[in-house]
């Protein structure tokens, strides 16, 4: 799996990463009335992270994305729920949204801003977090590396179970040793 790294791919990904996130931001902002929105923007950003992890490798990726994407997803869910639940305090229906229409804003001209953007941002964070975590864990374990770091292990696995990836890790080490032998 860990073949020689491609210089072209490396350089390309560094550019594409920013391009993709620009597209994601665009999709997130236009999603209010046009096709787009938090979900698809989240997927675009997650793809940029996944590409980056392919270029850098899982270990280096951990230094780029500090912290746990699942907690990002949790924060997103909380933001979306909070935006949805806020109207409850005023006795309005769940998920009702409110807008302000500003004209004459410097640089932008007319701006139509509202709480749907907050909700969409929540969805965005949720999708980025979950999708990138899923792929990181899977790629790590298919490469025979431990999928979770120790802090995550305490959060996501039972003290009674032996992690599934432990066997994979052992196999991966054997594989690498035997590959070095000849």
């Amino acid at each position, binding site marked *: 799996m860990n073949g020689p790294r491609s210089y072209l791919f490396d350089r390309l990904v560094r550019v594409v990463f920013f391009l993709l996130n620009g597209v994601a931001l665009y999709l997130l902002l236009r999603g209010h009335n046009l096709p787009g929105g938090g979900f698809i923007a989240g997927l675009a950003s997650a793809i940029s992270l996944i590409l980056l992890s392919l270029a850098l490798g899982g270990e280096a990726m951990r230094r780029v994305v500090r912290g746990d994407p699942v907690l990002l997803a949790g924060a997103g869910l*909380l933001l979306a729920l909070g935006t949805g639940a806020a109207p409850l305090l005023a006795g309005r229906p769940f998920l009702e949204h409110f807008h302000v229409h500003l004209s004459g804003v410097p640089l932008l001209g007319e701006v139509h801003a509202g709480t749907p953007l907050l909700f969409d941002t929540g969805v965005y964070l949720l999708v980025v977090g979950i999708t990138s975590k899923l792929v990181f864990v899977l790629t790590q374990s298919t490469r025979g590396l431990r999928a979770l770091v120790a802090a995550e292990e305490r959060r996501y696995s039972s003290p009674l179970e032996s992690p599934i990836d432990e066997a994979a890790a052992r196999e991966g080490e054997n594989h690498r040793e035997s590959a070095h032998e000849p």
Partner: protein
Amino acid sequence: MNLVILPVLLPLVTAVTLLFWGRPSPARRVLAATSAAAQLTVALALLARTLEAGWLVLPVGAWSARLGIVLVADPLAAVMVGLSSFTALAAVLYGFAEFRTALEHPLRLTLVQFLVAGINLAFLTGDLFNLFVAFEVMLIASYALLTLEADDWDVKQAFPYLAVNLTGSTLFLCAAGFAYRLFGTLNFADLAARAAAQPEDPRVIALALWLLVVFGLKAGLFPLYYWLPNSYPILPAPLAALFSGMLTKVGVYVLLRTFGTVLPHGLTGVHTLLAWLAGATMILGVLGALSRNFIRGILSYHILSQIGFMVLAIGLFTELAFAASIFYIIHHIIVKSSLFLIGGTAALLSRTDNLDRMGNLWRHAPGLGVLFLLQALSLAGLPPLSGFWGKYAILVVGLEQGEYVLVALAIVASILTLVSMLKIWNAAFWADAPEPAATQQDPRGRWMNRVTTGMVLVSLAVGLGAEGVFRVAQQAAARARDQAGYLRAVHAVVTKDAPDRP
């Protein structure tokens, strides 16, 4: 009106909070239990309000049913939400005894809350696509819970569950698309109004059959139940109680909802088919139970047999039959989940739940024996326990309609249920254990017994206060079948898009 969203919102917020909390600790457990108790309170408040008002409608986002999604609570939905909150509370409390805090799986309580959120949304939604979303939330949480503490063998057993439910979800999505193509709406009230206008249309019958397959699969109806009896036994006892209590009953609830509220009442052929499928499920389920030799396996097959009773009542399709079905659901959820918990305690004390190696529990744990007997006899349907009244009502309706064969099948299934319960009783409680030292005292058993005693008391109350419970069931049945009232309630709600336009 915002009360309607709380049974979904509370578990979701709790789930995220528990996720951030991370490591299991006693305080985290207190939070989970408090939230479960709060959810039960909300559900009871919802029930009281719906019994009074009939329907509580929440237009999500203040959009009318024409544009948005509505959540509708009627007495049936409120009863189901109450049962799910009750079962979840019992499962959470029982689970505390299973492991010390340090050994608890950190994700279990989180996932249980997600599962409850999905289940409650399925009960409260008034929209076919939203129902699909609720099923997905519920199923994804259940996939994770099923394999959370699983070993290789368990994962193999869980695979059919995953495969069959994914297929079912795909079929459900197709059915929703089909319904939208037919009627141009997915809202239950509007679907009902438009389907009622063309009851003889063969496409409506096709839609009904399609939904029958989808929800029959979720409920575990013959011949679509293969996924259930092998996957449930791999769950730890408290989760098995929650799954066996609620998940298949979501399928039964949705059958009640679609055939009572959404589809035209004139689909006699489909109803007859439903009744006969239910008859087959009753018999085959109980035969499967007799063939099993471990407690959780027997109980898992019993779920199917009992599903047969509930669906038989739906198939008979009078208002009294619906009330009988709802009463049976109330009885069954409490009894079945407490039996799984009692089985879990018995397995803990015997260090196995294989009947060949158990025994003597009556001498070591007489309290557990009494609890088991009460619930087992209730499941089999002996008066004055709750199961008797449920079966009695269903049999009365069956005799009224002249369905003598189905009534005979139901009676045979009840007797065989009693036989298989006695099989557990004889082997686990009465007979001598092959290795006398096998049974041990366990301090955890005491707390477990306290939780199950609470459940048994509720179940006894259902049996002894059967008349009051049956009145609630009758009102729930009347509301669930009142399509015109449902439509009025959904369209009467004030929204911000002009409600007077067609």
